[in-house]
């Protein structure tokens, strides 16, 4: 993966394969603490403790046919090379929480990349899931809740191409704004 936003896409796909109907993505950037943190929380079927631990292990993952896939080990690797780490908390029947953190100034930190593209893509492919996306940059918050969008659209589906395009721009513009107008969100 070239961008952290692609890791996010992949981890969320895991959540959806595990039957999640609500997925929360939270990203916190804190310059003072030199921290970038990503949290993905779902209400999917969850895993027992042992499976959750092993989900981070690429050798375990590639030898089974489970749907967890290679995404988590890849994310863990990206985190470790950038002075951070990944934890997975899960319980059968109670969903899964994946937390990844990185040293924001680390030279090997992958760019966060196109989060607007990731969220818009997820909405396009999974219109029935309630996506909640929060992004905090040095205390400035942007919050996106697909349920609010759905309510406004009434009978128009959220995966209509016009709507998906609007969502992508909506997120991109607002991220630029909380980022102080800086470029780099695409």
């Amino acid at each position, binding site marked *: 993966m070239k961008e952290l936003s692609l890791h996010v896409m992949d981890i969320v796909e895991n959540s959806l394969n595990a039957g999640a109907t609500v997925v929360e993505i939270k990203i916190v950037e804190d310059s003072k603490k030199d921290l970038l943190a990503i949290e993905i929380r779902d209400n999917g079927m969850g895993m027992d403790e042992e499976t959750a631990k092993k989900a981070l292990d690429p050798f375990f993952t590639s030898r089974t046919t489970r749907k967890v896939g290679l995404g988590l080990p890849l994310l863990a690797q990206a985190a470790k090379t950038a002075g951070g780490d990944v934890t997975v908390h899960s319980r059968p029947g109670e969903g899964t929480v994946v937390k990844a953190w990185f040293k924001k100034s680390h030279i090997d930190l992958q760019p966060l990349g196109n989060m607007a593209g990731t969220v818009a893509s997820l909405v396009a492919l999974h219109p029935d899931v309630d996506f909640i996306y929060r992004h905090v940059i040095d205390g400035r918050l942007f919050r996106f809740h697909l349920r609010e969008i759905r309510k406004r659209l*009434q009978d128009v589906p959220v995966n209509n191409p016009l709507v998906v395009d609007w969502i992508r721009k909506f997120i991109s513009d607002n991220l630029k704004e909380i980022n102080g107008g800086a470029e780099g969100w695409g």
Partner: protein
Amino acid sequence: MKSIEELEKIREQARELINLRKENENKTRIVVGMGTCGISAGARQVLLAILDELKKRNISDVIVTETGCIGMCRFEPLVDVIKPNQPKVTYVNVDADKARQIVARHIVNNQVIDEWVIPNI
């Protein structure tokens, strides 16, 4: 800050198009491979390009969905086009530019682009 109120306008636009096409029951499907290696190889950009092209052409009767890993890493990103009453066509190593052409030539003009296709996956 861009506000959620603008959605009203989008809703009206989308509704006009949907009403025009309500009769059309037999829908074309476009399926993008969204396994780990698909995503890593650029499937997100491919998907966004397809949606953008559909939007520009006012096509709202095509269903865009995903499939997971089918064990063909080196051919990712993969895109299937399934037209009603026609065999599935699988495009391999798709990028954003190819994706736009697939919409223009295959979806709109009904011409399979043979050189990008793998038969019978």
